[in-house]
């Protein structure tokens, strides 16, 4: 019973939404919109689940004084501080994202730089990955290497300085061979997703179930 009920719900919901795609008449045409609205509402609530898990895990670490519990203290304190600041900003300014709000100050001067810093790590990692992995071991690897270099040069003004048609070469590589390969992959992935969705709807694939 515990497994059968979710399977039935999955099957019925899946079939109804597929019917809704082809039958615009009420109630089928609007069912998808209704289900999507329900999903939007439920999606907001799942955040509470996550916060609950986070707080319980780290509070447990602090109570048991596990190694590294200091970081858990920082995490819980930051969570509480951000929450209080956000609520205060909403009460005082009507929105946490108001330019005068202290929450916006925290966002602009802490969250923004931290996120941008993590993203900028990619510049370093791409250099080390390229140095290590872009070796002309065989014909395929050599082709990849040459194409990569041409696109890298074509995407910056340096390329035009070296050879005036470099940007066009880079655009051609992106427009033609790259897009052909990508389309092939996309079609394969789409078919794979159709097959997997069919397996989920029919109850053959059950790994996501409680």
């Amino acid at each position, binding site marked *: 019973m515990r497994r059968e009920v979710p399977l039935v719900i999955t099957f019925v919901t899946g079939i109804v939404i*597929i019917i809704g*795609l*082809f*039958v*615009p*008449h*009420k109630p089928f*045409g*609007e069912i998808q919109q209704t289900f999507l609205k329900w*999903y939007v509402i439920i999606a907001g609530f*799942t*955040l509470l*689940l*996550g916060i609950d*898990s*986070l707080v319980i*895990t780290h509070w*447990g670490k602090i109570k048991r004084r596990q190694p*590294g519990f200091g970081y858990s203290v920082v995490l819980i304190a930051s969570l509480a501080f951000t929450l209080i600041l956000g609520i205060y900003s909403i009460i005082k300014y009507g929105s946490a994202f108001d330019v005068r709000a202290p929450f916006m100050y925290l966002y602009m001067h802490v969250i923004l730089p*931290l*996120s941008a810093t*993590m*993203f900028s*790590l*990619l510049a370093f*990692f*791409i250099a*080390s*990955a*390229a140095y*290590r*992995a*872009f070796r002309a071991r065989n014909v395929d690897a050599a082709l990849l290497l040459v194409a990569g270099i041409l696109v890298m040069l074509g995407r910056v003004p340096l390329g035009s300085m070296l050879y005036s048609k470099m940007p066009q070469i880079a655009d051609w590589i992106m427009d033609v061979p790259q897009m052909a390969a*990508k389309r092939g*992959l*996309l*079609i*394969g*992935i789409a*078919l*794979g*997703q*159709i*097959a*997997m*969705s*069919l*397996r*989920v709807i029919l109850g*053959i*694939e059950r*790994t*996501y*179930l*409680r």
Partner: protein
Amino acid sequence: MYKMNLLFLLVFIPQNVVAEDYPNDAGNAIIIRWSFPDSLLPYVRAFQIWRKEEGGEFRLRGVSITNSFLDDSTEDGKPYYYKVATVLKDGRIFESDISGPAVSSAQWFHTGRWNALILGVIFSFLILWYIRRAKRGEKLFLRRIPGLDAVDEAVGRSTEMGRPVLFVLGLGYISDIPTIAGLSILSRVAKKAAEYETPVLVPCYDPVVMTAAQETVKQAYAEAGRPDLYNEKNIFYLTSDQFGYAAGVDGIMLRERPGAVFLQGYFFAESLILAETGYSIGAIQIAGTSAITQLPFFIAACDYTLIGEEMFVASTYLSREPVMLGSIKGEDFAKIILMILIVIGVICACIGGKFLKFIEFFSSA
């Protein structure tokens, strides 16, 4: 001169005003279209759409700045009449002839989606047919996928080193197919890890995925006969911020030093950060994603990469269940049909003329 001025002003009257039922909808909508010279649009402030019912008076229904207007407040079965008025920037108004009666109604079938229905039925039939053949005991061939063959080797390596296994499900939600595929691989990895008594760490981006992962791992440990080894705290929620998640996972990698890292799910820009950090700690890495933009990074930095649909067949490949093998075979046959359609489409596009209808049929939605 007067006649010429009058003729000149007549060009501002909207022409060919057609009001008809809006096709392929649930009713209560009429679309009004008209033609107006593009060269005169700079003189126009807006178009007014006036509507009246049988025996009633014209009332302003709405305003448009394009050459069409959707009136979505009609009653099905009731006739309506429309006229369109051009409002110039200097305030002058030019009204069109009356168009109508137009009656709205709901349609039982979306005629623009025949192509999706036909292809959907064919593909579903193929998948179900091959599942039936597999159930009857027919042997179906599946090619080798090195990344999946290496799963047992990776867990074994972690066990030898006395290190845990790290399983990263990426940034997808439970509604994403790559996440479901990742969970099926997690099931297999967890079962093997339970047999070898190796802990599996699963930091999660989404709380719902976390609960699904907890159940998957618990089930896997039970199937391996080691439910006592299951530790719920090893599968935990980290954060729903992309780079916060990347920072958290990197921290876990550098502190826990896992022997094997599985990156299976949907990834974005943080993929290379995770993969490079995994490389720097010397872990064996098996990645799999349908995010095409991240595949090059995984191929460069990981030992094995499951490309796109190879990830979706993982549960089938690892379990070798006949029913699921059948669905893979059906999928492959569907791909052959698509290839044939593409070749026919290319030929039709080259020939042109009436043959373009073949392409038009498949490009409408």
